[in-house]
């Protein structure tokens, strides 16, 4: 057997590369373009739906954050305004608890 030399390999590789480059490019017709565009429209529809649900999610979380801040502000203001009347408030609450005792 004749061993292949580096030059032999290079020659075969060059022939294979030429064969590779001379491949005919197939023509894709109008039907193909139509199908691609149809799938893209479908993708766009899916993306639109997911965008809408993403928008709803964002709205829920933003509302939750605003509600949490408002609750904190309200609690803080209640605490500040009722600071001097803590005893009264306790009394009020205890009175309320007393009021929950079942009536006979």
């Amino acid at each position, binding site marked *: *057997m*004749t061993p*292949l030399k580096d030059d*032999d*390999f290079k*020659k*075969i*590789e*060059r*022939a*294979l*590369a*030429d*064969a*590779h*480059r*001379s*491949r005919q*490019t*197939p023509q*894709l017709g109008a039907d*193909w*373009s139509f*199908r*691609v*565009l149809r*799938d*893209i*429209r479908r*993708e*766009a529809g899916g*993306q639109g739906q997911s965008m809408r649900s993403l928008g709803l999610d964002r709205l829920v979380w933003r509302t939750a954050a605003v509600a949490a801040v408002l609750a904190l502000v309200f609690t803080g203001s209640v605490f500040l305004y009722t600071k001097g009347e803590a005893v009264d408030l306790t009394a009020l609450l205890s009175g309320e608890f007393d009021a929950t005792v079942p009536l006979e």
Partner: protein
Amino acid sequence: MPGHVLAGCPDFIGVQTLVSDDLEIIRRVLHGEIDRFAELIARYQQHVTRIVNRHVPSDRVAEVAHDVFVRAYTSLSSFSAQTPFEHWLSRIAVRTCYDFWRTRRREELPVSALTTEHQSWMDHVLAAESDDQFREQSRKREAAELLQWALGHLSAENRLVLTLVHLDGYSVREAADLLGWSVVNVKVRAHRARQLLRTLLLERKRQEDDTAQG
């Protein structure tokens, strides 16, 4: 070519117009005018088909090119316009071809798939003395089939790198950019893939000689 020379060149002006047109179309598509994407398909269909045709079997070109455009559309918002759209699309095309081979079970063609004509093709190539004789051999069906047989034995990574660097003639840096891999990775793989191809051809030649002697 220096910029001031290019500025007056009609081809350069044409390319610039095309690039700005692309950006305008992309902007409109992203604003919901999806049908404008058809213009990009019409403009780059040939370019994508040419790339895909070099990497996947002829009967799968339409399907893979289809995937390329759908992928381009879904990632259009990530297009930064730092490179021309054509180049950005080329990267998607090459990576889609890579995914095609990665997800496909490797179907190694047996040696028996090659006929005696394939077997003697290498001898004819080596014996070719003139350029005409050489070209005649490289145009033969056996050349393409032998190449497909050899590529069928390679992994998706080796196959893509071998095709880009050794068959298409891209530089290691260009291939790395298209594949999104490091230059070192492509360099190592290109060398390894070429050695594998040579081993396959050598085995093929040995079997051919054994058959001839037997």
